[in-house]
């Protein structure tokens, strides 16, 4: 995650410079239903109290991560 964070911050800076005076290139539309992972990813609890309660109830260890869903202020990206 830290390596990705570095990449994220570097691209955020580059994007700031690169955006000045030019519009983003239009993206090709992805096909509907094109899920990248047919088996599903990690199912995260987003609220700490909910996850802690489930861990106590089940006796399972906890994979804990805190992350910000924005990069350089742009939302929608880890």
């Amino acid at each position, binding site marked *: 995650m830290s390596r990705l964070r570095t990449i994220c911050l570097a691209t955020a800076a580059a994007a700031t410079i690169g955006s000045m005076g030019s519009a983003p290139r239009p993206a090709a539309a992805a096909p509907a239903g094109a899920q990248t992972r047919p088996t599903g990813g990690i199912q995260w609890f987003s609220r700490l109290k909910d996850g802690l309660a489930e861990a106590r109830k089940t006796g*399972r260890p*906890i994979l804990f991560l805190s992350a910000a869903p924005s990069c350089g202020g742009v939302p929608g990206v880890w």
Partner: protein
Amino acid sequence: MDRSFLSLTPVIQASRRFVCIRTLTYESPEEREFQRALFVGRSGDVENTTFCVLSPDGKQPITRAGRGIRQIFQSPDQMAEWMGKAADYYDDERKKAGEKAAAPTALPLSDSVRLGLNTAMADDLPLVVVYGATREAAARLEQAAAELAWKPEFIGKFTYASSEKAAELTPIDPAAKPGLLVVQPDKFGLAGKVLARIEAGASTEKLSETLRKGLRAYRPRALFGWEYLRAGQSAGAFWETRLPVTDFQEAQARERTRRFSAPPNP
């Protein structure tokens, strides 16, 4: 999306024996204190990311805590192998205590529809919104959705949020009617559109079919990395955190974006 460890099959499979908690940095004072107790950066405060594995009571770290997974594990395969051994250890502990194996059953909700939209976009997943006319109605629908969320067919394929407040649904559908909605986040996770909907009180089979319909209609994100950030900055998409950003690099990057996105002085 993180493709280095957490998106790889061995780690995902290993995660099914854990309770996985991913809090949102800078969005909750209580969660910030929990994060802060585990790890602080050189600034003496929380950074954007913190990773750790904890005992089931949430009190004992069983790995070092760090800013990233790479600080703790060498590779996804090594991480998955270690996770398997840790899960075995706690399985044995439960057996010794005479306790039966149990799995998570609660619906893993985001704290709000707004946070759910942003998280869904970041994960490139559809958002399921449980919308009840009252808190009690929402709770009943949450229970019905929870029975499906952990099934192999649906686990890890959705982000979830719940509300009984019409105002929370405004960025998705200002005229939304109560029910279960499968939502496509917009380009930057600030709004969304309904892909599938079923009224509250529907049968389990109808709820399942609604989730399937939403998955079929969902369009994965089109932009990544540089292109995505550049498009977001150009569109003026900006995420206001609830708490101050204490990660120095991220705070600087936010200021650059804010200056760039700000309208020119008259």
